[in-house]
């Protein structure tokens, strides 16, 4: 129910956007967001974009995971 999926904003038409979910186009209401831009990834929930996803934070999480895994591997070796 709280399922939300990452979608990329392709076109903005006033308060509504066309977003791409892995290539499939959907409509997204943008009224719950502050300053959404074309190219932003958003979380799409029941036709509403509820948050903008931040690429920097997403990369940082992956870097932390990779680093943890590296340290772990060295530990085992």
């Amino acid at each position, binding site marked *: *129910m*709280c*399922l*939300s999926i*990452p979608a990329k904003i392709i076109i903005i038409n006033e308060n509504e956007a066309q977003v791409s979910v*892995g290539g499939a186009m959907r409509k997204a*209401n943008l*009224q*719950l*967001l*502050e300053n959404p831009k074309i190219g932003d*990834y958003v*979380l799409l*929930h*029941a*036709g*509403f974009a*509820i*948050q903008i*996803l*931040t*690429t920097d*934070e*997403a*990369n*940082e*999480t*992956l870097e*932390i*995971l*990779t680093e*943890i*895994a590296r340290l*772990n*591997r060295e*530990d*085992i070796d």
Partner: protein
Amino acid sequence: MRFIDEYRDPELTAQMINLIKQSSVKSINLMEVCGGHTMVIHKFGIIDLLPKNIRLVSGPGCPVCVTDKRYIDQSIAYSRLPNVMITTYGDLIRVPGSTSSLEKEKAKGADIRIVYSSTDALDLAKTNPQKNVIFLGIGFETTSPSSAYIVRQAYQNKIQNFFLYSAHKVMPPALKLLAEGEVKINGLICPGHVSTITGSEIYEPLVADNAIACVVCGFEPLDILQSIFMLVRQIEKDEAKVEIQYTRAVKPEGNAIAQNLLHEVFEERDDWWRGFGVIPRSGQKIRQKYGRFDAEEYFDVEVEETKIDYGCICGEILKGLKIPNECSLFRKNCHPANPIGACMVSSEGACHAFYKYGKLNQ
């Protein structure tokens, strides 16, 4: 970056599981309170990959599952009124009421439509002026802003034939009740998408009053494993604090626009939860300013007496006291094609997840 595949890397997953195994000594209960997490944990077999001392327990995080039977019964009563169209998200129509379901009423001719978004319900009201269109609003803070939005739209555009029947709920009172309940919860895998709206501050009382470790978690397998690792690290050090693993989507302060909208349209009220009974100040009722669009205020219906399901242990499952395999109906009388309790109806329900992904001999 596509925000999905990156968090499913097999090599990193194996390393994370190893790390959890190495760092976890204590016997602990971790509860997830989001149906989305329940699904991912079972779908990707995470439950079988963890060491035996870590027990994962599902909590009351699937909105369809916690929606009380009397709400279904009242929705059915609305659907039997003349000139009424019921609009709803798909999951709800199969949930059994006391003697019927919305699906059965639809088969008998009631005008019941499944919508993808709340805005579709408002559009149906605009294009069907001869009908009174009632939208069944269920869900937590992730979903309730979209209902609040259409109520405000109906108010601003003077759409006279649109109504919301709200069973919207807020998470913190239920979490508080669980924290003080029969199951000792050491750590909470906090619902990521609820937190995009509320922020992470709502979990602070659980840390301060109940010493429960809290990590706001994303929805890919690596998100879950990293969150479990973060919880284990806190618990092994006898710490309890709120951490955010799902930083790409969740900010400590949440989504202010959505919070303001919720506050404008809804006020708190005591509400029924399946398995829990009434939880004080856990529901969201439409404020008086928007009362014209509140189905409960506008329509007067007689609702049949609620019938109790004998044998169904949905309530105990939602409280983390039992798992689906312990139910005498599970897989026998109760399965996805013929669900008896709501936890088998919703694809995010614990029973449904156990049925779909669990091992037969467990």
